[in-house]
């Protein structure tokens, strides 16, 4: 009798709760993604989860195959011999999810919008003379001067792929989110079942016509064999693992390595690496603030840090991490051993070196403010480890714990530490986001306020990055890339803390899971 008000309230809400619930289709693949999906505009966000979402719903003109080669996807392409004209022809049967056909106008508009938000696309536009639709299904890109990586950019899966969307959406100014999620991809987004931060639902796009070629990464035939894909966010890995064991979910995109033993015992669950690219953990110096405005001090810090320890603590199982000096990722075409000298020797030897360098540098004991994210598991350990090492080397270090989004916004400011500035922090990059000098944000040597946090200044670096864009052959590119890598180490742009692979876990009911630069949901059977 006391609780009448409460009860009636409750019933109402229970009913409300039911509305949000999906009606189950025949085959549903439930996946726990590495992060919850909170925003939907693939042109706006560099977050991996949004990218993955993008590849469900949207398509790119070109796809990228397992050999890092651009391949026709929405469009086939012809390049003029003078490398100044690219002609792209849309393939047959492309339809937006709202039923309208895909036109060249749409694609032009999409390219324009994309080029405003993606860093490397911006650079590209400096070389582009015009992009125009010459017919319903043909668009032509005229260049002012040759620009090597253009096709690569159109095909690249990261950080912001060149997703195509209907003109009416593409006309949404950058900064605003597109009002609805309409693409031409193999999956349709179910807006009604979308619960930001909790669940996203995709259904098979029945009208989708796959290409003929076999599927390879984002290129080739995207054949969908499940009716429905549900992304479920879970607050902690423990819950996810319980869930996959009880069969509540079919796939965990990224399992905390330490917990793999739990799944090893279970023969209904397989584990493996779906994304061969992996991600590079990077420790970034603030080149504008003392003590790290002094290259000698930075160098000392570089020696204090130690890939092995950092990775051991973060990942644990050495099967799943790789140590290499390459700033582009350990296995990409541009990978090289340049700068290996900075990683030589055991942790202790390096420490000795670090202490000696620091002593020599005349470091005045200015405390290092190290930012640590509390809510992003992959990155919580490194700052602690790094802090310990740096202290041992003779640094004064203060670890400031904050949640990831505070850290993200704080990193953009270069005011003195006292006023909320910073000296050092870690982040990680999907290799696809750094695999060549064009996309790699950390090697920007312009010192420009708008360049990515850290603001190193190095004229030579800028020349090289420019050269790279015009470089014709792969060998040229390699050569330039290596010199860049050398500078990145010598001038301590940042510390490459090693590369880790994210391990996925899936129930054995799932067959033919595709590997790719992001998690792909086509090809797989259930």
């Amino acid at each position, binding site marked *: *009798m*006391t*609780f*009448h*008000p*409460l*009860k009636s*309230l*409750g019933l109402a*809400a*229970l009913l*409300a*709760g*039911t*509305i*949000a*619930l999906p009606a189950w289709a025949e085959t549903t693949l439930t996946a726990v993604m590495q992060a919850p999906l*909170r*925003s*939907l*505009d693939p042109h*706006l*966000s*560099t*977050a991996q989860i*949004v990218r993955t979402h993008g590849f469900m719903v949207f398509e790119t003109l070109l796809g990228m195959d397992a050999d890092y080669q651009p391949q026709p996807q929405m469009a086939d392409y012809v390049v003029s011999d003078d490398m100044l004209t690219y002609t792209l022809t849309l393939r047959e049967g492309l339809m937006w999810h709202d039923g309208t056909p895909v036109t060249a106008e749409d694609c032009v508009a999409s390219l324009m919008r994309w080029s405003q*938000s993606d860093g490397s696309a911006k650079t590209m536009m400096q070389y582009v003379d015009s992009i125009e639709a010459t017919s319903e299904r043909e668009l032509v890109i005229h260049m002012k001067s040759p620009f090597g990586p253009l096709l690569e950019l159109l095909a690249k899966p990261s*950080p912001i792929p060149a997703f195509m969307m209907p003109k009416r959406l593409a006309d949404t100014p*950058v*900064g*605003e*989110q597109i009002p609805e999620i309409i693409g031409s991809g193999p999956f349709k987004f179910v807006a009604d079942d*979308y*619960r*930001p*931060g*909790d*669940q996203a639902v995709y259904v098979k796009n029945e009208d989708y016509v796959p290409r003929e070629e076999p599927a390879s990464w984002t290129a080739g035939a995207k054949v969908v064999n499940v009716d429905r894909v549900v992304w479920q966010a879970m*607050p902690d890995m423990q*819950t996810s693992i*319980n*869930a996959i064991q*009880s069969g*509540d979910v079919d796939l965990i995109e990224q399992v905390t390595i330490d917990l793999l033993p739990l799944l090893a015992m279970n023969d209904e669950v397989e584990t493996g690496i779906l994304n061969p690219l992996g991600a590079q953990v990077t420790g970034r110096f603030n080149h504008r603030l003392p003590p790290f405005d002094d290259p000698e001090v930075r160098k000392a810090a570089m020696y204090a840090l130690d890939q092995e320890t950092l990775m051991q603590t973060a990942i644990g199982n050495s099967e799943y991490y790789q140590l290499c000096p390459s700033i582009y990722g350990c296995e990409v075409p541009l990978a090289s051993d340049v700068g290996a000298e900075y990683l030589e020797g055991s942790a202790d030897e390096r420490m000795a070196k670090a202490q000696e360098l620091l002593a020599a540098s005349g470091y005045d004991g200015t405390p290092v403010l190290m930012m640590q994210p509390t*809510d992003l598991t992959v990155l919580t350990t490194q700052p602690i480890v790094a802090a310990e090492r740096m202290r041992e080397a003779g640094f004064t270090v203060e670890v400031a714990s904050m949640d*990831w*989004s*505070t850290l*993200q*916004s*704080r*990193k*953009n400011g270069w005011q003195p530490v006292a006023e909320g500035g910073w000296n050092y922090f870690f*982040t990680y990059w999907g290799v696809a*986001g750094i695999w060549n000098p064009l996309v790699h*944000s950390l090697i920007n040597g312009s010192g420009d*306020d*708008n*360049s*990515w946090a850290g603001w190193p200044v190095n004229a030579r670096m800028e020349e090289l990055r420019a050269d790279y864009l015009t470089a014709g052959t792969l060998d040229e590119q390699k050569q330039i890339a290596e010199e860049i890598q050398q500078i990145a180490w010598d001038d301590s742009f940042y510390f490459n803390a090693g590369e880790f692979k994210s391990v996925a876990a899936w129930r054995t009911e799932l067959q033919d899971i595709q590997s790719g630069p992001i998690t792909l949901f086509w090809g797989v059977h259930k």
Partner: protein
Amino acid sequence: MLSYFLRRLLMAIPVMFFVAVFVFLLLRLTPGDPAQAIAGDQASLAQLEAIRESLGLNEPLSVQFVTWIGQMLQGDFGRSLISDRPVLEMIGQRLGPTLALALVAMAMTLLIALPMGVLAAWRHGGMTDRLVMAVSVIGFSVPIFVIGYVLIGVFAVHLRWFPVQGYKALADGIGPFAHRIFLPGLALASIYIALISRMTRASMLEVLREDYVRTARAKGLPEGLVLFRHALRNAAIPILTVVGTGFAMMISGVVVTETVFNIPGLGRLVVDAVLARDYPLIQAIILLTAGTYVLINLAIDLSYALTDPRIRYQ
């Protein structure tokens, strides 16, 4: 009675306004940038600026506040900065699970705590009393998430009686619903049981000393009647009060419980919202919970009248 009701209702207005101002300032005067949460950490500053502009985050605070309050008064809680969804819609999606959890926990609490309390008070100083007090003090002392994990460890992982996580709405059938809500409900109820059983005991102890209880006994009534008809009804008011103020405590419990059992409710929504700096969402949720708190306590004040004619007839 009516007059009393009106007064309480009007009182709620300044309270809510205070909450609104407090929350708004709290959010805006602290670091963190929603734009970043939208664009991701690899975004360039220019990109961020564009987003901030379009979100109106560059307006002066006062302007932002006035617009916000204005919208609120028209029942428009705005759109989420991050997901660009109407805030109310997002809350609506998450309300069901949370309320289900809360109500189930409440039901469990009353079923367990009231008898516990009454019994303890009746056998004051006896073994039962000690036991009840022990249980309640333990309920107070063990963090709710530990209770949660222990429950999962025992009943879900080892005995496999219940699923380890997740939520099913009542619409999917009472069976699955009950099956999945039981453990979280119990975990959440634990601290509340502790609270209510104590309050019941205390309040009953006082009432049992009253003359009219002695009168009832002097009339040779069966003990059951004396306890539940004569004593408990008089003991109700302090208990009700705690139920009301305990609502806040319940919310804190909900946040944690939802995380442990992966229930897609408001609790998790708000934590996410805070971590992502989704101002409109945070503001809306806090205001709504605050509003509910005020309403519940108002409802409870009124329910005093049901239990006590002296209030009813004033």
